[in-house]
């Protein structure tokens, strides 16, 4: 009697396990280390980070985006999608009304907690390096139930390689400085922008040990004497007025790559357009890199 009872319980357990695994067909883990269970691929997606919106569209699932944040402006079809405010401080009510299957966003603790408590599934994905981009593409592909993440990553990689191969040997090792913002906040070797610059064969004067986007002492930049400076259009006019900067190689020889307003979005987002970013950076380096 005991044995048959145990067998029955065992059978029930097995059936239960089978049922639950059938119930949750998808499992995706996010940057918090938490696993999200979904019964089927997400059909209604809200994205609150521009790079994630671009990735979803690059995976040919643009029509599944029912809501995006204010700054998601590429591709242009996203203009017709409901805007939900900023990525870190979105309009919670508007998100809930849209009844999304999942919300993909970066870390914004309060918003994530609030959405979870309202029963909305949240996937926290914040790509910061090239390896992150590859991983996030895979996560999104699993989430959406589409193929093509590997192919997309290989094409981005190939685009960067093309730009790298277009660089002449002469410009290998050219010292560059990429200024992200007034401060000066620089992009170091360990940032995603720095990774692109390294693959283009240049030497970033800001070492990886300082973190991805450190606030540096301007004297350090003057001492390191970069040959090419990347800077936004807005700050470009202030370069010559900075004390002591007139001696920098790049400024004396006018090797300053000005990043136009419309190019800023492409370069500043670790996403599917990194190949284009590499092309923009390579184009400027071809003009300014070591042709004396």
């Amino acid at each position, binding site marked *: 009697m005991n044995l048959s009872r145990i067998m029955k319980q065992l059978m029930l357990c097995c059936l239960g396990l089978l049922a639950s695994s059938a119930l949750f067909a998808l499992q995706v883990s996010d940057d918090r280390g938490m696993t999200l269970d979904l019964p089927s691929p997400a059909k209604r997606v809200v994205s609150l980070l521009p790079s994630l919106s671009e990735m979803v569209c690059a995976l040919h699932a643009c029509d599944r985006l029912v809501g995006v944040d204010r700054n998601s402006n590429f591709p242009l079809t996203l203009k017709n999608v409901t805007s939900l405010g900023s990525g870190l401080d979105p309009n919670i009510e508007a998100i809930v009304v849209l009844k999304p299957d999942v919300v993909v966003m970066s870390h914004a603790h309060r918003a994530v907690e609030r959405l979870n408590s309202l029963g909305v599934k949240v996937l926290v994905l914040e790509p910061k390096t090239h390896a992150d981009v590859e991983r996030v593409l895979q996560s999104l592909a699993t989430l959406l139930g589409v193929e093509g993440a590997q192919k997309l990553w290989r094409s981005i990689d190939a685009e960067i390689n093309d730009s790298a191969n277009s660089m002449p040997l002469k410009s290998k090792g050219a010292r560059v400085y990429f200024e*992200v913002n007034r401060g000066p906040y620089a992009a170091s070797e360990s940032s995603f922008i720095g990774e692109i610059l390294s693959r283009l064969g240049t030497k970033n004067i800001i070492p990886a040990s300082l973190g991805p986007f450190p606030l540096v002492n*301007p004297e350090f930049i003057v*001492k390191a004497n970069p040959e090419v400076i990347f800077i936004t259009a807005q700050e470009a006019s*202030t370069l010559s007025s900075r*004390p002591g900067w007139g001696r920098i190689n790049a400024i004396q020889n006018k090797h300053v790559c000005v990043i136009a307003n419309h190019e800023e979005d492409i370069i500043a987002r670790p996403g599917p357009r990194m190949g284009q970013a590499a092309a923009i950076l390579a184009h400027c380096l071809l003009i300014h890199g070591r042709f004396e």
Partner: protein
Amino acid sequence: MLLLLTLCLVVLYWGVSVGSAGFVNLGSMPNEPGLAAIVFDIRLPRTLGALCCGALLGLSGALAQGLFRNPLADPYLLGSASGATLGVAAALVAFRVSPSAGHWLARLGLTGAAFIGAMVAVLLTLALARGFQHTFRLLLCGIVVGVVLGALCSLTLLLDPQVLQSMQTFMLGSTSYVGWNSVIMMAIGWLVCIVIAVPLGRLLDGLSLGESTAISLGLNIGFLRAVLVCVLALAVGLSVAQTGLIAFVGLASPHLVRSMVKVTHAHLLLISSVMGAALLGAADVLARCLLAPRELPVGVLTAVLGGGYLLWLMQKRQFSSTGGES
């Protein structure tokens, strides 16, 4: 006083020696040709700039506390901090939103925008308070203007959140780009302010006894107060424009001086200046050398240094007073 001056000189030497690689012996200057240029072009104006800015803030802190007869007054009370921040935010956002307006603003420069913002805020405060007569009203209007302009600044930043990082360096204070022009401007400004304010120290002494007493002593409060408010606005405007918002120097310097010596306002203004200079100079050097080659915002260090020193002094006094009694 002599002690403070020597302290300033020490800070100056230290500041000129510390670079992005940490402390460097100046004696090695002839061996490294680039070093001399770096010292002259970058470190010297930066350290001198920090000293001048600190002097301006120390002076305006003492002025504010004397004028408003409030030991918690700081030089940003008339709304100048929020005005300057709004000016800088508007300049940064305008360029991205409409490049043509931005070009015009670029010629003005961020320092110009900050200065104009600070002045407009002070004028607004004065207009709302309808004159210099009632200090309480002036104080209240200053706070209101500060809060309202701060809200406008936040709204402006919403238009383009990408400038938030640039704004952060302004709002926490930075001496990164102080060059010789800025130093000369601040030095002249400080001289002008000192020359006008120190003789008027008698007014502040009189005011501390109460307005009616001051009038009965024969002081022309209305006019003299107006002059001092103008000096305050000028000093704060100059310092905020060049280095951004630096907290605590204006508030702490007069207290630090008073805890060490007992002086009349005329001397307090002068000594508070020098104390402010030493404080900001030391903070600037530490900001550069603690995490070299990275940099800490100087406003963070002034708060830690000034606050820590003030706490220590208070503890010492309490200790010595209880010790003296027993």
